[in-house]
């Protein structure tokens, strides 16, 4: 697999969304304030939803915005607000001299270049694996349900026929998670 350079509207919008997602993800990992990290996480989710939309997975994009950007982010922010985390406050420690700051930028495991370096090495390793893989031939585009069927219609038809049992199991998992979260966080000794 090679790395072709293709410039068109799809690629440009993909590059923009990918840049937003990557910068926000870097902030999630390195930002000193955990509330800011949570909001940057919402930005990552929205950018990834845009990429799903670009890839033609409309239902998944909507589900991503609803579940991740809507529910999970709000839940994380709730958890931050309900606990007194010391990362919420910025420690005012003055500005160290420039060289010292540069050094910290480069090597600090908390907010330095290290996460980026790690991610690039990881992505290159993965890309090397992909490049050595044997790719199946691309299947021809099949209209299974009918012409001009929307993505949501196909997803719905598959979800309730082929994947009906996993779907039901997923609902049980959600129920168990709901009950478990309530049991874990409910105050004790209140009969």
């Amino acid at each position, binding site marked *: 697999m090679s*790395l*072709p350079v293709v410039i068109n*509207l*799809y*690629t440009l919008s*993909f590059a923009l969304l*990918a840049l937003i997602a*990557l910068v926000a*993800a870097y902030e*999630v*990992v390195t930002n000193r304030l*955990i509330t800011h990290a949570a909001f940057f*996480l919402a930005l990552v989710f929205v950018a*990834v939803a845009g*990429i*799903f939309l*670009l*890839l*033609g*997975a409309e239902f*998944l994009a909507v589900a*991503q915005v609803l*579940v991740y950007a809507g529910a*999970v982010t709000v*839940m*994380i922010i709730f*958890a*931050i607000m*309900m*606990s007194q985390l010391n*990362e919420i406050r910025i420690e005012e420690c003055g500005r160290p001299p420039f060289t010292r700051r540069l050094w910290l930028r480069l090597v600090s495991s908390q907010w330095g270049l290290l*996460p980026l370096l*790690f*991610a*690039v090495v990881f*992505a*290159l390793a*993965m*890309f090397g694996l*992909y490049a050595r893989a044997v790719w199946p031939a*691309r*299947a021809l*585009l*099949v*209209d*299974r349900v009918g012409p001009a*069927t929307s*993505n949501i219609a196909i997803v719905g038809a*598959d*979800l309730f026929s082929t994947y009906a049992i*996993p779907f039901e199991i*997923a609902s049980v*998992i*959600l129920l*168990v*998670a709901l009950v*478990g*979260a309530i049991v*874990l*966080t409910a105050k004790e000794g209140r009969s």
Partner: protein
Amino acid sequence: MTAGVSQIPLAYILILGGLLFGLGLYGALLRTNAVRILMSIELMLNAVNINLVAFNQYLSPGYVNGQIFSIFVITVAAAEAAIGLAIILEIVRRRNIVDIDKINLLKW
């Protein structure tokens, strides 16, 4: 449905997925705040979802198997976030710490 997809080279999307996963892995392994570790895990799950959808659209367009797998990943991720945050809240309530290096009661 898949008209515009083939305009983007698959390699670009795979690189984005790899970078996002790498950032999330770094955060999950090296940060010590429990809430931030949960957030990093969500990042990794998102990267995996991107890869699933990309492979689906490039290798078997017209089918939605990868997207349905992504939907299940989202479901399990939501459940995991709810349970994880509940556990963290309980730890904070009992011991008033969120640093996982200090939560080592079960270590030995």
